């Protein structure tokens, strides 16, 4: 290679102009990493009629945008997007490529990394830079989420990582003029495309979005029974929040997977996270450790959850939850009366 690969790229996941928030979260983190490494930050936009999206990428701090506009790129298909992204990487040699660990990001990243014969670290919960070695330090839960591993990619570029949504905060969009847009072409003909999207079926998540809510009350195996898990719902309701759960609680069938918090469930960053009867396995901690306030309720004083707790209470969650729920209700009532007076 004549020149060393340079620049941090963020794949902007979009469809019909709708951008996945994780792309903006990655632009925020990408800016920090690019400044630390002393290099540029670029967004990569693949799609059709994408000019508006390109302008927004500059508002999130891009120095430049790489783009391919082609009707074959919408709706998303692995074949067309991996083809376009691989081509852009080969032509422009980025040093680092980041993507959201969404369904699309996971589908795409494995294909792209293989075609570029480079390393890929999935579902990172922390990123940093070794400035001297110019290495991306990619931290993720390993071994079933029981330990955190920091992974490096040696002698291959781009260094690729996917990051779970809500791991990084979404930055504010700034007023920024559009700058350099490097446009590529998709060298695919319609007849080359072997997959066809016949239809999309949108299924709204009835319970709202766990990863977008301010208050989460989560229950774990320490609650003991499915009946006791109702106490989690009761407190969540009293607080105007949502119910979450650890993986063991979901696997026990106490609540559906759509409430699971952790590496294989949702990553969340609410204002308040109450962990009731959750011991705090690493695969759970990585999904909630960015909450502003963490309340841990557990019988076991040595439970790892207390290591991240803002407030810890050593108690049987099944006994404490109803008492606290009553306390909350009492205070909420008081508030309603005061408000009227």
């Amino acid at each position, binding site marked *: 290679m004549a020149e060393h690969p340079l620049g941090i790229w963020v794949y902007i996941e979009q469809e019909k102009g709708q951008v996945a928030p994780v792309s903006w979260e990655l632009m925020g983190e990408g800016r920090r990493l690019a400044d630390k490494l002393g290099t540029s930050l670029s967004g990569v936009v693949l799609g059709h009629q994408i000019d508006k999206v390109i302008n927004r990428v500059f508002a999130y701090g891009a120095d430049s945008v790489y783009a391919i506009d082609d009707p074959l790129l919408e709706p998303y298909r*692995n*074949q067309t997007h991996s083809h376009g992204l691989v081509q852009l990487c080969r032509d422009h040699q980025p040093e680092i490529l980041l993507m959201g660990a969404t*369904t*699309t990001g996971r*589908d795409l*990243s*494995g*294909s792209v990394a*293989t*075609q570029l*014969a*480079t*390393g*890929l*670290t999935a579902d990172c919960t922390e990123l940093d830079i070794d400035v001297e070695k110019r290495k991306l330090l990619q931290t993720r*839960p*390993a*071994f*079933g*989420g*029981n*330990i*955190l591993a*920091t992974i*490096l990619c*040696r002698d291959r570029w781009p260094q690729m990582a996917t990051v779970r949504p809500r791991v990084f905060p979404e930055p504010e969009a700034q007023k920024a003029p559009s700058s350099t847009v490097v446009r590529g072409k998709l060298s695919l003909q319609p007849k080359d495309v*072997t*997959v*066809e*999207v*016949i*239809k*999309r*079926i*949108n299924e*709204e998540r009835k319970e709202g979005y766990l990863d977008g809510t301010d208050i989460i009350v989560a229950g774990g195996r320490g609650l003991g029974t499915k009946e006791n898990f109702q106490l989690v719902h009761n407190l969540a309701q009293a*607080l105007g929040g949502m119910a979450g759960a650890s*993986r063991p609680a979901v696997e026990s069938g106490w609540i559906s997977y759509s409430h699971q918090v952790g*590496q294989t469930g949702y990553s969340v960053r609410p204002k*308040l996270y109450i962990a009731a009867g959750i011991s705090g396995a690493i695969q759970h*901690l990585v999904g909630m450790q960015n909450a*502003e306030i963490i309340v*841990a309720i557990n019988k076991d004083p040595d439970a790892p959850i*207390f*290591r*991240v*707790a*803002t*407030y*810890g*209470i050593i*108690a049987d969650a099944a006994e*404490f939850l109803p*008492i*606290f729920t*009553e*306390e*909350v209700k009492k*205070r909420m009532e008081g*508030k309603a009366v005061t408000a009227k007076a």
Partner: protein
Amino acid sequence: MNIMEGAFVINIAVCLKQVPDTSEVRLDPKTNTLKREGIPSIINPYDAHALEEALTLRDQVGGQVIVLSMGPPQAVQSLKKAISYGADRAILLTDRVFAGSDTLATSYILTGALQKLMQEEPIDLILCGKQAIDGDTAQVGPGIASRLGWPLLTYVSKVEKISPQAREIMVHRKLEEGREVLRASLPALLTVVKEINEIRYAPLPDLIRGATYAVEIWNNEDLHLDPTQLGLKGSPTWVSKTGTPPLREKGEMLGKDQASSAQIASLLAERLIPDIVVPNR
């Protein structure tokens, strides 16, 4: 080709990984290391669903199911189990030079084995689980599809239709908020989610067959793969350190001094008030 012979059947390869049952893994609180002893090995649960789907499709259309696994010699156990579930043939890819492979090297080895298999007979479909529970990377399936240049369909929750005659497959694919229906040409590679099926119990004759079946063993003398792309040497990613999550600011333990639950509940509510989480009276 099957089509030339007029016999429309499908041959399906299933990639299985034998994994430690990570839900049984515990961290030693004193040393912060994993307690690995005595953890049972199982077929990666998502791969078990891939196998079940392969068996169902074979029973509907005709053809055979071949299971492949890369791993240590002990992984024959999972392959024998796959035979007992009803798979027709099982191959273990095992060699010291494969050890330490990351996902890039693993997809290279599995693809090499699949290509060798395809010199013997055509493969129409490859099924994998969406990810393995020990690594949770979800990269090997897409890696194999890329290397073969086959259509990739990930997070498949339903096979709507498969037409060996028309050489195409229609599937439902799970998305963040809903699903999509896709049509792809065959051959193709699918990775599946648990919702795709319910795993049946193996019937007795198959249990006996599984116990007596001799799993085929392939090493790199059979595959002739480029040694620089195998094992640790062929793996661009490496673990530089392991640890536990960074500690947050030291928290406050409430009610250590033998307070009653009601007092602690009141104390907690007080603490949360300044943050406007529980509105003040």
